[in-house]
């Protein structure tokens, strides 16, 4: 039972027992509105109405999963970074907050925690979120108000959109488009437009340079990224994540281990990992917001929840990037039986994210000209070599030649 069918049956149930009676009741109660309310009730009875309702549920569930993951990713980043740097990281827990409240309520407020104070500090993310929401949204006087507001909307909506596009398993997917990965990559490349927009609209030189760098980086890395994915598409003969994952289970190599794409297409994997790091703008490729020279890059002028959502969206993009890497090269949700496939998928995604976190806190940032040089002069040829290797493999091994077909889209 896939996620969508579950949502569909849930939609049927809620429509029949909850929504249609409510709308009918409304239609009876307020005669002037009887027509619209009644027609909504009628529409919910149809197939199209139920599908729409089911989609709403599916998207919401995917969004919830994504957002929960987001908090986990941010927390992992904070804790691992802290441990790498010989710190403790956030330690705030609900209990310590309560004790603090008790302390503050007393006559003479003391900031001394109780001795048994401890916590893993995941609440720190919520606290930061609350803080960001309560802050003032500042728009610079000479900024382009419309574009200044549109920038975050483009960036954040395109990033959140990513969450519904990739499946957690073959049965847990909000959407199952035949060109799924193409849509994901398209959604990925919307965000730099938002970056450019907000960078330009901020009327700040740092923001503008940040936006420009983002655009240049997109240009340099989008092409090798897609070329490195092309090898996978050639092998699977499809853009559909489910097909790609299934294809990776077919072959075996040493000790009967599945022949995931990372084995035959190791060059492609390396190129993809570098490019996706640049795509989601993490260290060492976080040039658009290089804080040493550009203060905060294109987010310099943003405040409050807008800034927070920018940060959150970057983590969502990081999560989505890791998910794409898992689907393409690491066998997706495939894994030994006792663990459900969704968990396998998340384990792999989190391993990649932890790897990225380690890279982020181990290396400095690369310079603009070097990043462009790397993209155009090294990664582009490498990704072409990867395609060449795939084609040669297909020619040499009969196993591969059986399955190579052109994707359905063409």
């Amino acid at each position, binding site marked *: 039972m896939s996620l969508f069918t579950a949502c569909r049956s849930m939609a049927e149930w809620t429509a029949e027992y909850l929504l249609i009676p409510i709308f009918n009741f409304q239609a009876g109660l307020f005669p002037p509105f009887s027509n619209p309310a009644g027609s909504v009730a009628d529409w919910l009875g149809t197939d199209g109405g139920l599908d729409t309702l089911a989609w709403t549920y599916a998207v919401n569930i995917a969004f919830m999963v994504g957002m929960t993951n987001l908090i986990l990713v941010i927390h992992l980043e904070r804790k691992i*970074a802290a441990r*790498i*740097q*010989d*710190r403790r990281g956030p330690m705030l827990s609900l209990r310590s907050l309560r004790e603090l409240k008790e302390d503050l309520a007393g006559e003479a407020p003391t900031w001394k925690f109780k001795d048994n104070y401890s916590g893993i500090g995941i609440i720190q993310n919520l606290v930061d979120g609350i803080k960001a929401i309560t802050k003032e949204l500042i728009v610079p006087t000479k900024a382009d108000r419309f574009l200044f507001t549109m920038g975050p909307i483009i960036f954040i909506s395109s990033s959140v959109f990513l969450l519904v596009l990739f499946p957690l398993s073959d049965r847990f997917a909000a959407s199952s488009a035949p060109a799924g990965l193409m849509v994901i990559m398209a959604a990925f490349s919307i965000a730099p437009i938002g970056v450019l927009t907000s960078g330009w609209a901020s009327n700040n*030189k*740092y923001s503008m*340079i940040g936006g*420009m760098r983002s655009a240049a980086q997109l240009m340099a890395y989008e092409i090798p990224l897609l070329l490195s994915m092309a090898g996978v598409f050639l092998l699977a003969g499809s853009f559909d994540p489910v097909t790609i994952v299934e294809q990776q289970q077919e072959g075996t190599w040493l000790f009967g281990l599945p022949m995931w794409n990372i084995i035959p297409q190791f060059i492609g994997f390396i190129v993809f990992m570098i490019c996706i790091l640049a795509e989601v703008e993490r*260290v*060492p490729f*976080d*040039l658009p917001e*290089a*804080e*040493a*020279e550009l*203060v905060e890059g294109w987010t310099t002028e943003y405040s409050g929840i807008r800034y927070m959502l920018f940060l959150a969206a970057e983590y969502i993009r990081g999560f989505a990037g890791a998910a794409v890497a898992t689907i393409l090269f690491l066998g997706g949700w495939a894994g030994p039986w006792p663990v459900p496939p969704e968990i396998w998928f998340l384990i792999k995604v989190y391993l990649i994210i932890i790897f990225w976190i380690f890279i982020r*806190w*181990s*290396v*400095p*940032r*690369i*310079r*603009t*000209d*070097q990043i462009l040089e790397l993209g155009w002069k090294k990664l582009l040829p490498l990704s072409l070599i990867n395609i060449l290797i795939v084609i040669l493999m297909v020619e040499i091994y009969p196993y591969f030649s059986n399955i190579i077909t052109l994707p359905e889209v063409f």
Partner: protein
Amino acid sequence: MAEMWISMGPQHPMTHGLWTLKVKVDGETIVDADPELGYLHRSVEKMGERRKYFMNTTLTDRLCYASSTTWTHCYTHTVEELMEVEVPVRAQYIRTIMLELQRLASHLMWAGAYMPDLGHITGALYFWRDRELFLNLLELPSGSRLLYNFIRIGGVKRDLPNGFEEKTERILKLFEQRLDEYSDLFENSKIFRMRTDDVGKFTAEQAKNFGITGPNLRGCGTKFDLRKHDTYEIYEEIDWDISTREAGPGYSDCFSRYMVRIDEMKESVRIIRDCFKKMPAGATLASRIPVRAHGEAFRRTEDSRGEAMMYVVGDGSDRPYRWKIKSPMFTTMSACPHYLKGYKLADIPAIMGSIDICIGETDK
């Protein structure tokens, strides 16, 4: 993008203090630069004219919060020359130990501040963690963690406490071990080398003309260190070498300046060990310390950032008539348009960080 002026500072992550660097960029390439100072000007020289000679050590402590002992030493050294005070030998040894510990702390402070400039936050915390070790050491005799006020006119405030040598040796061992460990994280790291190699070059000839001194000059391969060439305290009795390194024939880049400082830290460890070996017993404060002085005195010492110079004129009262401070960073920063031109915008933090700016001493 057309050419435009970007004003970096006074509040900017690159500045390490309060100053403004106006850069003219063509796209990402720097065409021109104009440094501006004065945001942290406290008029230390004028303040010093109102205070007695011995009180000014609190001002010199605050010239550079990263290396306060070296500045205080430079001042007391000059005033001792003015007042013709003989410093006891043991006090000289203690001073040398404190100076070298301070140099270590200052270089670690610089290294820690340099890493975020390159986007490497972990490096900052590693180096600052090690700096804490030396701050703990400096705290033991002086009683303060940052502004020690330990070196006094005529000697030092008090003798080293019991067990100081063992504690120092333990920390030095740990520090050497960690410094070896870091070599993979920093100087051998490919991306670190990409950011620092062939960036911010100047030749030794240029450096001397610009007035650049200290580790930045030694980064050009010039063997010039005031601890050897205009020796003071007991540096000539100690066994150590001047650490130099050059990126190419006679010029330096960010990486060679980084390596010179790393090597200098290792030399400082050597000096401290040798000092403990040779330290005699005795008094730590001169028996005769005048409060009034007449005449003029000029001394220069090797600060952690270059040549610190002080020129004190006394008119017979208990306050200096004129007190002139020369900060090595003052002239080094004045030349920054020369070694910034032609590099990328992202190189500004890498270059300005590598020369080890301290605005406190520059703005006085």
